[in-house]
């Protein structure tokens, strides 16, 4: 008898629970915005936040709710995603130029001097706080991998105490550029060009004392550039990517090798 009561009781409780859930899911179903789902399907799902929204879901929801938001904000998806989103929304897309992150420092452990051995917390911002870490150059890559930690695509690695970005993997979201306390990483247009791989704003002799491959601000590159793309600001060469044709004359003429050819 008692087994019967027990079975009936558990069965009835289970049935009541199931009924409540069925009724609730029927009457309280939330309508899913179909445009939002369609847009979400076009996005790559990297959740990098380069668009300025909280991940791909957030961007899709914002786009579906407000058609005035630009459809081309997705960096990883690039032109392809922008066109698909535009098709889903029924508008024409204007495509953002693809960009890639670049480390403006080439002073690895062989090239730059050490002033001390840093043994503190192994993050770039902590090293930066403690007199700029152990490197003789306080402008360069600290090499503790704050950028590696934020990269959604594993495009960055640390070799010889310096960050390297694989341009084939980089989607240009710019998270590493935000994470770098020395602002060594910048976003540059993804095309063949010459790039300055140094961020030091010190005068020539001081740069030379700290690092073998730093920009000493000798202005040689500015003089030889046929396109007039190179300028010197704060003792540091700057290549205008709009004007640079990627001819490589500045690369050949740089005495320290601070300008390098960037091959995308």
């Amino acid at each position, binding site marked *: 008898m*008692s087994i019967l*009561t*027990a079975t009936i*009781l*558990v069965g009835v*409780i*289970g049935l009541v*629970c*199931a009924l*409540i*859930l069925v009724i*609730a*899911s029927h009457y*309280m*179903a*939330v309508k899913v915005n179909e445009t939002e789902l369609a847009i979400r399907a076009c996005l790559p799902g990297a959740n990098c936040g380069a668009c300025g929204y909280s991940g791909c879901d957030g961007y899709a929801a914002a786009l579906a709710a407000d058609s005035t938001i630009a459809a081309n904000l997705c960096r990883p998806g690039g032109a392809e995603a922008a066109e698909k989103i535009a098709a889903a929304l029924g508008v024409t897309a204007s495509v953002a130029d693809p960009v890639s992150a670049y480390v403006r420092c080439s002073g690895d452990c062989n090239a730059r001097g050490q002033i001390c051995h840093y043994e503190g*917390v*192994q*993050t770039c911002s*902590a090293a930066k706080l403690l007199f700029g870490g152990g490197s003789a150059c306080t402008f360069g890559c600290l090499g503790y991998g704050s950028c590696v930690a934020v990269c959604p695509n594993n495009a960055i690695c640390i070799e010889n105490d310096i960050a390297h970005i694989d341009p084939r993997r980089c989607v240009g979201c710019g998270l590493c550029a935000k994470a770098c306390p020395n602002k060594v990483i910048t976003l540059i247009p993804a095309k063949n060009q010459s790039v300055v791989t140094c961020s030091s704003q010190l005068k020539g002799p001081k740069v030379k004392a700290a690092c073998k491959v730093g920009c000493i601000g000798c202005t040689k590159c500015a003089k030889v550039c046929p396109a007039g793309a190179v300028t010197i600001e704060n003792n540091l060469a700057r290549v205008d990517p709009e004007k640079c044709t990627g001819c490589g004359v500045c690369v050949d003429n740089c005495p320290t090798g601070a300008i390098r050819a960037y091959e995308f």
Partner: protein
Amino acid sequence: MTKLLAILFASVLVNNYTLVKFLGICPFLGVSKKVDQATGMGIAVIFVMLVATAATWPIQTFLLDRFNLGYLQTIVFILVIAALVQFVEIVLKKYLPALHKSLGIYLPLITTNCAVLGVTINNMTDGYNFLTSMVSSLGCGLGFLLAMVLFAGVRSRVEEAIPPKPFSGIPITLISASIVSLAFYGFAGIVTNIFG
């Protein structure tokens, strides 16, 4: 009133579910990496514990005890709590989407959490009435939140440090958890001294 306060303090500090009774260790280790996530999880647990107690106390008192079916407690409680959490999730999704966004991801995790089940069962074993059961659940939830937030703070410091290789990751997390737990054993006896 003094009795309610004593129950509340006892369940927050002395009988802390995570650090003293070792229930709900899975979310305690899993979701304690960041303080904001730990807070979200803790608040969701408080909510679920209160709702679960409110639902299971009448079931135990008016159904199971009346038909002498106390041995069905565990299975019926799991059934009711799981269905309840699902129901709450549906309701939140419909009427309070903002709350659902912040708590929603934690709700399915808590569905059959042993801390929630433990609270509801212990309330019965301790012979609490409805009011004291609710106060005890609130205290247990607050205790869980306290443990989560404290440990997330400890853990964020531990993550920065570099332990020896064999200790890195989960081992050093468990060691720090045991030290936090030891600290909570220091509260034993405090309630009888304050309220006793």
